[in-house]
């Protein structure tokens, strides 16, 4: 089944890397098809950035999102920009310390994770994205946990494997404090 995933945040949070890891996990370690594209442009300098992943069992033709299944938002700006694109039966994951919202609109499920806080706990704020990936796998099964771990290990700098695995685990284990069922929810 086809899944469209967008990960969003600001420059420096490792957003592109996260997209790359999700895509690689699916394509290389889960043996599925996957594409990942990112927003480019001088506009990207220091401001919002995002990566679009598509995972499918069949070859993917159109590599851009038309109908978002999953949004993982690590910044307010990213959330604001993309949350309306999520399908009614989609899911929004967010860093609960960085994203605030009023009416959760038309989307089925909202789940928060303190990804940045987890990372800070681990002493390296830069692994917040990996915590989010753990959470993502746990909540959506978009890839297998194994594939995701392998992908992470293949992508992060040498010597940071344990740290990243910890972050992943913490995100994976996190029981979402907040599950908001939106207007059009079917869950």
């Amino acid at each position, binding site marked *: 089944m086809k899944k469209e995933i967008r990960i969003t945040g600001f420059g420096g949070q490792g957003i592109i890397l996260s997209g790359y890891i999700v895509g690689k996990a699916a394509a290389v370690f889960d043996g599925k098809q996957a594409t990942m594209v990112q927003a480019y442009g001088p506009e990207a300098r*220091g*401001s919002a950035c995002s990566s679009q992943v598509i995972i499918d069992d069949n070859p993917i033709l159109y590599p851009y999102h038309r109908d978002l299944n999953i949004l993982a938002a690590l*910044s307010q*700006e990213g959330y604001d920009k993309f949350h309306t694109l999520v399908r009614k039966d989609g899911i929004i994951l967010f860093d609960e310390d960085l994203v605030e919202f009023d009416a959760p609109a038309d989307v089925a499920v909202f789940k928060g994770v303190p990804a940045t806080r987890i990372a800070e706990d681990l002493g390296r704020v830069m692994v917040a994205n990996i915590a989010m990936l753990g959470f993502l796998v746990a909540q959506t099964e978009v890839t297998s946990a194994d594939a995701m771990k392998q992908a992470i290990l293949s992508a992060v700098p040498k010597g940071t494997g344990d740290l990243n695995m910890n972050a992943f685990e913490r995100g994976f284990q996190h029981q979402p404090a907040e599950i908001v069922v939106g207007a059009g929810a079917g869950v």
Partner: protein
Amino acid sequence: MKLWRTPLDAEKVRVPHGVVSVIIERCKGCSFCVEYCPRDVLIISRNFNKKGYHYPEVVSEGLCVDCNLCEDICPEFAIYSDPVENTPAPATKENT
């Protein structure tokens, strides 16, 4: 338009003073202004602006000497000072 700043000779006998303004939403939090203000007028705020940057705040208002350094060094055109006279005196022929 050329007179947006007090002409130097108008200040002849007085210590110039300034008041600093920050256009908060332009600031990208580089701290140049804070670091290079000769009078330590500024500190970085604990607050964020909308883009998530810490902008400068005035801590020692009276100390500003309107040297414009913060204004010139700011890469974002986000801060400037205006001259004020804290010892107001009638404008006489001699000192204008």
